């Protein structure tokens, strides 16, 4: 614990990361209380105030149908976070399990699982997501499915590499000599030693999943209107640059804050947990 605080104190950037992520999470959780115009997350139209530059009470300005950008960004964070958590909650267990099995069992299991992983890794992520979204309907659920499909191989690869190293460690041999089951060796002995690297990567990836989801929405393949999404907001405002700059700048900054914050925390976690990957 003392060491953790010492590392945090010695690195002001990690504290900044903590503040930024706290900001994002608090906005998302308490959106209903923080947002000045909660109704603006939906299909509200207020032509009296459309396309207004930042001014009270619209501190980030309003969009083309007169909705408060600040409120919409806060609700967009909620969706981004849920998206990130759901994607990682599905992709990480799948990737980690595949990596562990391939790394520990070796042989044909390793060959099949890792070639499958390579296939997924060799397709550019956005292309894969776009093709899945092209076949299926562009809905939020399908968006998550698409992002998940391109995310698990990275965990499989990471955990596979760690497992290959850990398999040679004496404690694995000791457990095998005692007669422990394969399940015990894989999940109780090796997995805990993969966790620091996995947790670090998950934190970094929260930022990247948000970024990818925004990219998909920017292309019109992710979250659909009127649901607020940072990527779609940037896309919608892009046509009106540079005059209506607030339409793109504020959602863009919001993406930056989230991605930057999670990255800083990920770097600090790498030091604290001593993960070398």
């Amino acid at each position: 614990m003392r060491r953790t605080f010492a590392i945090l104190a010695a690195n002001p950037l990690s504290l900044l990361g903590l503040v930024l992520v706290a900001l994002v999470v608090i906005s998302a959780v308490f959106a209903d209380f923080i947002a000045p115009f909660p109704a603006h997350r939906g299909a509200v139209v207020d032509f009296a105030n459309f396309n207004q530059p930042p001014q009270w009470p619209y501190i980030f300005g309003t969009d083309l149908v007169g909705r408060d950008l600040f409120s919409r960004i806060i609700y967009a964070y909620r969706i981004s976070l849920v998206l990130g958590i759901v994607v990682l909650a599905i992709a990480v267990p799948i990737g980690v399990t595949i990596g562990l099995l391939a790394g520990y069992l070796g042989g044909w299991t390793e060959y099949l699982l890792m070639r499958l992983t390579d296939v997924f890794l060799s397709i550019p992520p956005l292309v894969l997501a776009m093709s899945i979204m092209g076949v299926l309907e562009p809905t939020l659920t399908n968006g998550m499915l698409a992002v998940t499909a391109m995310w698990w191989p990275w965990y499989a690869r990471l955990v596979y590499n760690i497992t290959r190293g850990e398999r040679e460690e004496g404690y694995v041999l000791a457990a095998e000599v005692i007669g422990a089951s394969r399940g015990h060796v894989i999940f109780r002995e090796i997995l805990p030693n993969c966790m620091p690297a996995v947790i670090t990567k998950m934190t970094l990836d929260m930022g990247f999943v948000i970024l990818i989801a925004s990219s998909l929405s920017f292309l019109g393949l992710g979250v659909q209107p009127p649901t607020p999404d940072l990527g779609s907001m940037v896309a919608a405002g892009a046509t009106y640059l540079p005059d209506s700059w607030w339409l793109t700048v504020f959602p863009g900054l919001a993406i930056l804050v989230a991605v930057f914050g999670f990255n800083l925390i990920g770097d600090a976690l790498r030091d604290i947990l001593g993960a070398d990957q």
Partner: protein
Amino acid sequence: MSAPMLDIRDLHLSFKGHTGLTEVLHGISLHIQPGERVALVGESGSGKSVTARIVLGLLQDLPSARITGQVLFDGRDLELMSSRARHALRGTAMSMIFQDPTSSLNPVFRIADQFHDVLRRADPSVAKAAAHDRAAAILAEVSIRDAQRVLNAYPFQLSGGMNQRVMIAMALANEPALLIADEPGTALDVTVQAQTLQLMRRLVEDHHTAVLFISHNLGVVREFADRLYVIYKGRMVEQGPTDAVFADPRHPYTRALMAAVPHLTGGGIPEIAEASPDFAAPLVDHEAEAPS
């Protein structure tokens, strides 16, 4: 008495960590005359390896290391030198042999190219062909008969013992005044280790090289060193000529160490404490008590 080649005076070292300062060396002094073989004997965590790193000038540039005291190499204070000047000494006036020869050689370069790099540190203008001839001559000195094959090989194509010989040859290629050997041969089989030590001993005698020999193995030290220092938890506890210390170890820690070594002639494993307040007893200096 001539000026010492290496003279360490009241050297302190501490590391600044996340939870405060940890003192590793509590003021050690050590000197080595030109051509003298001196051993620094200690267990893990005694501070023997960090001492070698300070002499090599490797710890001075580490931000977390706090070093006080003097390290005089050939009369020049290392602490007052720029890190560039310290760097220039390494591989020329002082060189080093490591524990594991195979991992200290770069696996992707042929031995000949690595020799060329070593020789270039002393003479940047040395041509490849000249370096090759010089390397072949040095390899012959370490009893490598087919020098051409070895020079054209990559380290992984050679045995551990062969790599150790190559390491010794490289370390002595620039005729250093001081050689630092950190547990040489520990990673090798006993028969190879014995040959390596004999070879090293003969070479440093021929070249009149001073050696700082770092080891935990009393038997190896007895066979190699003229004089020895015993270090325990960052403090020197006993020093003197090798024969004198082995004939009459006086410090409780040195006695415990010697008693704990299992003997080839049998006698069982003695009951010895791993630690004792007696081990903190002051330095026993065999030379101070018997001036000659």
